[in-house]
C-alpha cells in the first residue's frame, strides 16, 4: 500500500467544508494530531455513498488528538485524547504543535 504518512507523523485535517457525505468530523477539521496507527486501506466512503464503487483504496489513519488541542476550554485531564479514523485525502502534513 502506497501511503503518504507513517506512524508518529504530525498531520492536520484539512480545513475544507464541502457539502456531501463527509466522514472527517467537523470538530477535527483544521486540527493537528499524530498518526497513531495505519488501519489498512479502503475505498473512499464519501464516493461509495453516491454509488461510485470503483475508486482506489485509500489509506486510513488513526489520528490521535490531544483534547486540549480539539476544545478551547477542555475541562478534563491534560492527558486526555481522542482518536479519529481519517482517510488520507483529508490529511496534510503539519509541523509539530497546533497548526
Amino acid at each position, binding site marked *: 500500500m502506497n501511503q503518504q504518512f507513517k506512524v508518529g507523523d504530525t498531520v492536520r485535517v484539512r480545513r475544507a*467544508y464541502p457539502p456531501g457525505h463527509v466522514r472527517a468530523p467537523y470538530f477535527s477539521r483544521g486540527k493537528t494530531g499524530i498518526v497513531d496507527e495505519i488501519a489498512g486501506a479502503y475505498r473512499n466512503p464519501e464516493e*461509495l*455513498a453516491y454509488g461510485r464503487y470503483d475508486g482506489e483504496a485509500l489509506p486510513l489513519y488513526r489520528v490521535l488528538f490531544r483534547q486540549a488541542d480539539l476544545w478551547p476550554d477542555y475541562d478534563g485531564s491534560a492527558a486526555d485524547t481522542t482518536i479519529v479514523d481519517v482517510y488520507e485525502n483529508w490529511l496534510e502534513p503539519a509541523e509539530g504543535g497546533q497548526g
Partner: protein
Amino acid sequence: MIRVRRVHDIGGLPAGPIDRSEPEHAPWEKRVDALRALCSRHKLMRTDELRRCTEDLGYGVYDKLPYHARRIASIANALLEKGVFTVDDLGRKMEAVERRWSKER
C-alpha cells in the same frame, strides 16, 4: 466564511443529559431494524449509501424525527434511488396499509 455542518456531524455540539433508559422497542421499530439487516444481507445498498440518504434528510427532518422514523425514511429513499421499487409501488402500498388499519380501528 460560513461553514456549514452537515446535520449528522454533531461531535462536540452542546447537548443535555443522556437518557439512559432502554424501553422495549415497538414491533414496527423492530421491523425497521430487521428490514435494515435484510437490505444489507441482500446487498440492496451499501451502508455508506444508507448513511448518506439519512444525512440527506437534512435539517428539520433528521434532527426532528426519532431514530426509527428517520431510519425507515432513509431506507425508503435509498431503495427508491436504487430502483428496488418505484414511488408508485410504495405509495400504493402505504395507501392500502392505511386503509386497512383504519378499518381495523
